[in-house]
Structure formats: C-alpha cells, structure tokens
C-alpha cells in the first residue's frame, strides 16, 4: 500500500520543530509499523536526507523504548501492543498517518520522535526497590509463602514496561498509572511491606516534582497501556498514600 506520513521533525531540544509530509510506497500489510519507518529512513538516507529519529530496541514489545503517538493514539490504533508490534494491516492504502512524539512537559523532546523519559527513572530511584543487599544470604525463597492471587496480581502490575504511553495519552500528562503499577507490585507482596509507607510517599513526591499532571480518572491510560495495567493500581496507590499519611 501507499501512504502519506505526517511526521514531527525537530532537530534538537531547542528547535521549535514542525510537521513534515512524506510518502512511502509498496508497504506490505505484514510489516510492523517500525519496519515501515525503516523503509522511510532507508529512502531518506539514500536521498541524502536526515532519517527520522525514533526510539526502538527489542522490537518485540517488552523493552518499552518505542514511543510514537500515531493518529492521535499512543502506540497507534491497535490495543495491547507497542508501536513495534503494531502492524500495517491496521491501515489502508492511501491513508494519511500522523506521527508525533510523546507530548509531556516531563518528557522533553530530544530529537524528532525521541523523548527523554529519565523522569521515570528518577521516580524509581526515590523508592522503586526493596532494600535488601544482594549478598545471597537472604532466607530461602519458599520461606515466605505468597498466595497465588497476590503473586499473580503483583505480576500483573509488574509487567509495566515503562514506555510512558500512559503519560502521553493522559489529557493531564499524569504518570499515576506508571507509579501506581510499581507501588502496587511491592504493596501486594510481603517483602514490600517494611518500606511501604516511605516508598509511596517518596515516589509520589518525586512524581509531583517531575511536573507530571494530576490524575482525573479518565481511564485513557488503562486503555492505551500496551501491557493492560489496571486502573486499580492507581486506586491502590491512593490507598497506600492515605494509609502512609494517617
């Protein structure tokens, strides 16, 4: 199929940036969206132009690098996928596709479609861990039984890939789904209880400091999340913070 692409081009963080139109031809339906972008970039390089910069790495939906806002949706129109898992069969011949970077004050653009998500790392530094040394002298793994349900729910929260789609799609650029997922994982496990109060306080404080907006429970993040992280994680974080503050 043949497509028109409207892509955000921005030389560096200081540049104002603008949308630029491109045409690509002979795109196969079974290509992934990023392979389509590869075709465009090969075309640009061969024409002596600068290829479009975009983040990508594993190309199997787990590293969380890829981050495009496609036709008004984070990771494009499909559900439960990252951009690298989005396939061109979701589009039709002759379509115009608008491609923008994640937009959030806390995610400044580095170049074209590449944004800086280090704010997520800093939130994790503030408490996204259990303080246990890696000495190998911890107790036996089966010493603390954990109910299957708690372990499974913790796992569901832990599948977050930190891609930032929740922030990108939220009308308020809120990071609560991301932080909620991390807080939930530890809150659900006995190992996480010892530091639970400090963890949620510190992570929320850092989240606020980074300039993310506030959650208004629109639920858009849950819908766009490639890993289906539940809004319940946000509710749980709210509870955890209340508990920690009383």
């Amino acid at each position, binding site marked *: 199929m043949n497509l028109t692409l*409207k892509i*955000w081009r921005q030389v560096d963080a200081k540049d104002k940036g603008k*949308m630029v139109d491109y045409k690509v031809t002979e795109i196969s339906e079974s290509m992934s969206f990023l392979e389509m972008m590869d075709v465009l970039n090969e075309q640009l390089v061969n024409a002596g132009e600068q290829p479009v910069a975009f983040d990508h790495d594993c190309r199997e939906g787990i590293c969380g690098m890829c981050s495009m*806002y496609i*036709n*008004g*949706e984070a990771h494009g*129109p499909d559900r439960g996928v990252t951009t690298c898992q989005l396939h061109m069969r979701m589009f039709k011949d002759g379509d115009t596709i*608008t491609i*923008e970077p994640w*937009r*959030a*004050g*806390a995610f400044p653009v580095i170049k074209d479609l590449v944004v800086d998500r280090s704010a997520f790392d800093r939130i994790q530094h503030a408490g996204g861990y259990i303080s246990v040394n890696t000495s190998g002298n911890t107790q036996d793994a089966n010493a603390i039984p954990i109910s299957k349900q708690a372990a499974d729910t913790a796992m569901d929260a832990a599948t977050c890939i930190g891609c930032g789609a929740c922030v990108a*799609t939220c*009308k*308020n*650029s*809120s990071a*609560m789904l991301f932080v909620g997922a991390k807080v939930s994982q530890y809150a659900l496990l006995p190992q996480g209880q010892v530091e639970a109060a400090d963890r949620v306080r510190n992570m*929320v*404080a850092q*989240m*606020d400091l980074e*300039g*993310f*907006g*506030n*959650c*208004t*429970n*629109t*639920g*858009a993040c849950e*819908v*766009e999340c490639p890993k289906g992280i*539940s*809004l*319940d994680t*946000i*509710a*749980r*974080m*709210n*509870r955890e*913070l*209340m508990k920690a*503050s*009383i």
Partner: protein
Amino acid sequence: MSGFFKSSIGRKVAMALSAFFLMFFLLQHLSINILSVLSPDTFNEVSHFMGTNPLVQFALQPVLIFAVVFHFVMGFVLELRNSKARKVSYAKNNGAANSSWMSRNMIWSGITILAFIGLHFVDFWFPEINTKFIQGDWSGTMEGVEGFRYHEELVHKFANPIRVAAYVFCFVLLGLHLAHGFTSAFQSMGGTAGRKKTLQNIGKAYAIIIPAGFIFIAIYHHLNH
C-alpha cells in the same frame, strides 16, 4: 498529614471528599424539592425548617458554601496545572478512542454548573438572604400568600420558559459531570476492584436520577403554574 494534601494524590482525595459532600447535598436537595410536587404543604414546612434552623443556617450552610467554593477553585487550579503539564499539544489527538467525553470535559460541565449556581443564587439564594438577613424577616410568609411563601415562589420562578430551558440544559450537564464524577470520586479514594461494577451501576443511576428529578420538577411547575 498537611503534606498529604499538598501532594497530587492528596488533592485528588480533597476533590473527592468535597464531591462526596456535594453529592450528598444534591440528594438532600432533590428529596426536599420533590415534595413541592408531591405535597406543597410538606414542602413549605420542610423549607421553613431548613431556612430558619440555626444549625442548618449557621453550620451546614457555610460548610456547603465552603465545599462548593473549594470544589470549584481546586477544580480550576488542577485543570490549569494539568494543562501546563503538556507544553506542546498534539497536532492530532483521538481522545474519544480511549476515554469518555464526560471524563475529558469535567471543566466544561463544571463551568456550566458554576454558571447555573450563579443563576440559582440570583433566583433563590440572594432573595432569601435579603429577606432574612437584611430585612430581618424570618417569618417565611409573604403578603398575598396563605401560609408559607416557599412553594409559591418556586412555582412562580418556573413560569418563565427561558429559565426552565436554562435549568434543563444545566441539569443535563450536571448529569454528565456526575456520570464521571461519581465513580471518579470513589476511585480517588482508593475504591477497590471488587466493588467496581456495583459502584459503576450506582454511579450511573445516581447521575441519571438526580438531574432527571430536578428537570422533572422544573417542567412540572412550568406546566402547572
């Protein structure tokens, strides 16, 4: 604890707490108003009680006003901060793909409700304050009306079709505001997943019954004045 209400989540919780109060108030308000249709006399008596009882007038009324002001001011502040969190907006954004219109436009339904409250104050609250606090008339009666004046005043207001139309419009937006706001408040308070479905259903019912009730009253009195 003071730190809590400065955090993003604390503010959400504060919004939710004021919302709970306001939602309770709406329920109470509708319950009394519906009496104006069922039994004008009872309506008059209850209205007189509410209008003259010191506990209601000097304790609950200020709390209500505070809750209203707080909910609005906080709502606007948060909206402003939230819009600042995205400096460059999307050229193309398909919000409808992942969220309801109501959830994305709480500010607009909120502003409409604010405008309504303005109208409502001009219609009822200011005259009431004028009568009671400036003129010092706490009798609840008025010339040319037998018994209490409340029902008569109410019916009189809804004679004007433009006012009724404005009320109906605002109530529809109140319904939309509640359709998101009800469950949202519970979610902010950490409502658990187990009760989610029930909550959603109660929320839907509430968001329909409350505005529908007020609309019914307005139209009823318009047609029967």
